[in-house]
């Protein structure tokens, strides 16, 4: 069976001031039709660059895809011409970006921006495109959609703008929706609305979703599987319940213990991951997390491969088996 999306050994670099930044280092993962996964990592982890490469949106130069393949429904997207890619982008794979204010054109009414997306990919009349735009806005819960399509982006709130972006992404019934931190710029109550909306739309429309997020808390209730990235590498992958219950990479463990729980009554000191993420301009030898890792051993000077670590799980840690019993970040093995 072919997967909906299969990313194989993908590496992306950027050139800046004579230095080579290794943003994504040979990542591989698959996902199936209708599945929802999350790619979690901090800034500089390569989580966004990885999906931009899937969309064919890496600016070249300075960016460059060094190696790998992105198979969408069996077809390698990296080999498509710009013309062919344009037919995939928006129609089969759509994307929602972080900041709805900068991703909408401020001087065009939203209706025009939606119909443009529809007419680019579907051979329909202007009237039909407009009807579809209203239908989509209605679907994402924008009140008075029929009248509001003449309004400009600034006339909407942040949450409404993100709804419009989602409507635009879904106009052509994509099979894969990539949501790149779609709620980061929003307030927590509006964030909950958007998460709820996306969940509803997925069960209604059945598309696959990749959530890109820095927030392990946010994706917990939204996805089935989580991929954790650190400095351009996938360090762990697991079904969502397993990941939160028993993380098998020290970085995931540290992240989970660095966030306070809203229902925690005590004020124990937060487990913090000391140090900083590595400088991506320098070649990384060994495990990228080793300098900050309390479980580092001499073996960590060699890059640990991402290996099977139980059913549906992968970990890139030499000591993943020993980590199974650890409940607190930093406690001895």
């Amino acid at each position: 069976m072919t997967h909906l999306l299969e990313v194989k050994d993908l590496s992306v670099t950027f050139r800046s001031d004579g230095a080579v930044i290794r943003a994504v280092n040979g990542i591989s993962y698959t996902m199936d039709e209708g599945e929802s996964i999350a790619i979690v990592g901090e800034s500089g982890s390569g989580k966004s660059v990885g999906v931009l490469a899937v969309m064919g949106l890496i600016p070249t130069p300075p960016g460059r895809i060094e190696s790998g393949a992105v198979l969408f429904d069996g077809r390698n997207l990296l080999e498509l011409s710009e013309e062919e890619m344009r037919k995939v982008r928006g129609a089969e794979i759509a994307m929602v970006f972080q900041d709805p204010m900068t991703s909408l054109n401020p001087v065009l009414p939203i209706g025009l921006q939606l119909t443009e997306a529809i007419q680019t990919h579907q051979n329909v009349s202007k009237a039909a495109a407009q009807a579809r735009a209203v239908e989509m806005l209605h679907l994402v819960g924008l009140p008075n959609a029929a009248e509001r399509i003449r309004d400009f982006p600034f006339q909407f709130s942040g949450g409404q703008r993100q709804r419009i972006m989602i409507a635009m992404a879904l106009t052509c019934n994509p099979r894969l929706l990539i949501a790149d931190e779609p709620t980061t710029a929003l307030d927590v109550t509006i964030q909950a609305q958007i998460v709820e909306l996306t969940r509803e739309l997925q069960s209604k429309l059945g598309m696959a979703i990749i959530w890109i997020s820095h927030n392990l808390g946010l994706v917990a209730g939204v996805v089935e599987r989580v991929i954790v990235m650190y400095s351009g590498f996938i360090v762990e992958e697991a079904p969502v319940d397993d990941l939160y219950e028993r993380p098998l990479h020290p970085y995931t463990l540290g992240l989970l213990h660095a966030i306070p729980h809203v229902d925690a009554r005590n004020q124990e000191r937060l487990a913090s991951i000391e140090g900083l993420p590595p400088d991506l301009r320098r070649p990384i030898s060994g495990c990228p997390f080793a300098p900050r890792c309390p479980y580092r051993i001499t073996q960590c000077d060699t890059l640990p491969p991402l290996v099977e670590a139980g059913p549906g799980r992968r970990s890139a840690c030499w000591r993943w088996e020993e980590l199974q019993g650890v409940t607190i970040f930093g406690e001895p093995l």
Partner: protein
Amino acid sequence: MSTPAETNALVQVRDLKVHFPIRKGLLRRQVGAVRAVDGVSFDIFKGETLGLVGESGCGKSTTGLAILRLLNMTSGQVTFDGQDISAFPESRMRAMRRHMMMIFQDPYSSLNPRMTVNSIIVEPLNVFQIGTPAERAERVRELMELVGLNPAFVNRYPHEFSGGQRQRIGIARALATNPSFIVGDEPISALDVSIQAQVVNLLSDLKRKLGLTYLFIAHDLSMVRYISDRVAVMYLGRVVELSNRNTVFDHPAHPYTRALLSAVPIANPKRERVRQRIILEGDVPSPANPPSGCRFHPRCAFATAECSTVDPPLRNLATSGAESHWVACHYAERFIQEEVSAPDTIA
């Protein structure tokens, strides 16, 4: 709103209002006002951290700025260490500022990129003419060590540091004059998750070591619960609930607090799937034209006719002896007693 037990307040805020005029037309006549902060009262006790939470536009940052008098208040009173600073002339206020400092949200824009770490941290000492040049240099060293920066980097520029390290520079600058009160306006929200914990731990160490009092403004509720002793929840320019942190988080009495808390994602997929969430409809109304009666009533699932006409005062629910629990809701008692979750259980 202070009871006899609550007298050791370092900062007292009484009926604070900050309105921004809306001007229109050729003559720039005032046609209205954005009531960013509209009658806020609370105390901050010596040595405590008061968390101030709410959505964007609720007035939490404006409140912080007005307390430090970095913004002109429209009316109301702010007392710092027993002195009514709201009436101070600017010259006297300036002398006062060495005791009250601010840590800003964005460690990228709050540090001058053309100044070295040394000149950034020493600046408050120069402004307030504290110490001799040699003493100031020694103090900068000491401060850098205190916040966990290597003093050897004293001549580097902000761009040479990461976000978390820059926030440490901002903290060192705020501490230079030995202030007793610090307002942190979202001091960690621009930082990565693994760095947030480092900075939060640093802030609590400093508080203990130096006996500081914090006003911690944030929208990340789990971090606020973690760092605060008491928590005030703001909505549309008003405080709607104020109590110690466990009361606010475990027994919220205001429907807005309940909705806000239920919107916070929990990093536990099993619990996240089964728990009931209150999803608030719509957006926060404009503070230029707040709703009548209770400001939350258009979004409140429990609103009655009374709520749309009568503005509920902030009142103390606690029975004598118990810790105070201030709530601005007509039906707060019922929310406290029953574990109300569905709209039809109250009518």
